[in-house]
């Protein structure tokens, strides 16, 4: 327990002390939420009663993706290339506790992100409608999926490649993940493709659980569950601890 606590403290401190990482995890989601809520520059789904009803769940999706995939892949990739993971291999920390500490850190950072976005949303006039239980379940499933993708990248790619790839995917999914504009505004084939990715499923799930209420569509559940199982398994099978 002591090694796990020491490692968790370190992981959280490292995650919250790096400028570029905070920009992606908190800065951009906050800017997008405020900017688009005020300017209404992008189309909203016809079902949305207000901009914040769509954009709060949307930017929360962005935040979860940033922490699970972007931060995790970049940080873990750097740790691998600097031999940190190798060095930890001969300490009593052990792999299960290291993984548990990483998950703890991801969840703590997400709670901070979601609290910040919720408070700003409320200041912008957001009234949550729906079911916080569904919100928590879908957020956890998506975190597992995104973290699996992040660790898959960290375990197989060079750290310079990871930085480019993770930020690139972040940008693309920002636009085709149903976070800031509705999936239905995408061209047909792109919309179908987008619905296979975890970003669109999470934004749909969060939109229904805290944006407009009503049940989460079946396709989104299936998508979230499959990524939550598949991505961590893929990461576990391919992860290399040393460079």
């Amino acid at each position, binding site marked *: 327990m002591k090694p796990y606590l*020491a490692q968790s403290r*370190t992981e959280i401190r490292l995650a919250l002390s790096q400028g570029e990482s905070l920009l992606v995890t908190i800065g951009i989601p906050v800017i997008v939420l405020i900017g688009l809520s005020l300017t209404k520059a992008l189309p909203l789904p016809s079902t949305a009663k207000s901009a914040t009803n769509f954009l709060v769940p949307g930017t929360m999706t962005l935040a979860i993706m940033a922490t699970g995939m972007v931060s995790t892949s970049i940080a873990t990739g750097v740790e691998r290339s600097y031999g940190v993971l190798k060095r930890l291999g001969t*300490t009593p920390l052990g792999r299960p506790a290291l993984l548990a500490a990483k998950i703890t850190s991801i969840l703590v950072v997400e709670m901070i992100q979601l609290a910040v976005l919720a408070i700003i949303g409320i200041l912008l006039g957001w009234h949550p409608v729906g079911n916080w239980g569904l919100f928590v379940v879908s957020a956890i499933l998506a975190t597992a999926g995104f973290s699996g993708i992040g660790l898959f990248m960290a375990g197989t790619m060079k750290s310079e490649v990871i930085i480019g790839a993770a930020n690139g995917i972040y940008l693309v999914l920002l636009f085709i993940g149903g976070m800031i504009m509705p999936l239905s505004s995408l061209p047909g084939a792109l919309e179908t493709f987008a619905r296979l990715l975890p970003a669109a499923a999470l934004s749909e799930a969060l939109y229904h659980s805290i944006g407009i209420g009503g049940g989460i569509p079946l396709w989104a559940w299936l998508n979230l569950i499959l990524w939550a199982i598949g991505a961590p398994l893929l990461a576990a099978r391919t992860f290399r601890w040393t460079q």
Partner: protein
Amino acid sequence: MTTIEVNDLYIAYGEKIAVGGISFQANSGEVLTILGPNGAGKTSTVESIEGYRRPSRGSITVLGLDPYKDLPKLTQFIGVMLQDGGIYPRMTPLQALHLFHGYYKNSHDIDYLIELTNLRDALKTPYRRLSGGEKQRLSLALAIIGKPKVVFLDEPTAGIDPEGRLAVREVIRNLKSQDVCVLLTTHELDEAQRLSDRIIILDHGKIAAEGDLDELMTATRGENIRFSASSGIDLSALEAEIGAKVTEERAGEYLIVTQATPDNIVKLTSFLANRNIFVGDIRAGKSSLEDVFFALTGKVVEQEAQNGPSTGRRGRRHR
């Protein structure tokens, strides 16, 4: 009980054989050094003993456990200093010490380690901005923080500063007095000579020689005469006079590979007298570890070929 026991260790990477069936032991309170040129199999050997890789053949036990299979049970009792840091680049030494302090059931006091490795002035500097010596000293402190019974130091003096060198010596002395088994790899013969109880010379994945310093030096019957004088002496004339090979190792430093009999000394001095050559000094006797190493591996001590052309066999050793 034997602390480290290696039996017929064989490590292959695909077709390439890195270590070809070696056996040795190390005991508590003993400093065993593995010496060898680059590519001799030092790191493969040590990393297998640390539990990082599974041997292709043969067996290893550390404190009675198989380091590859039982690594989680061993980690409380071993301390590792890798060649390349392995510390979070943004972490300060103080944070790293606190983190590692949390990993072990029984850890050294952090202040004690800071004093021992003289890290006081670097405590708040991120790892990536530390000097090479500070990085090495931190890595050393982290290797011993858990009061290990077995310590692995892979090239601990590579790129180190003078105070780091002193810290390494001090730490190894302390470990010995606490009955810790230390496995050291180095390419620095001075350090090996100064620190080790026993030395294994590894070459092409095989043990070329093993023993304490005296044994190694007698094994190669390395008697010789060295002298210093002005550079550019006619070597072939001197060889003809003495009947043994003469080399000018550095400008003005000569080595004659022959026994230092009174007769040979007379031949040398009369040769010099006839030519009115003034002598700096004449030393006779056993070969150094460096000579032994050269005799066994045919390689000069300086191993880092990327440092450009060799500066000769007694050239500066650096990484």
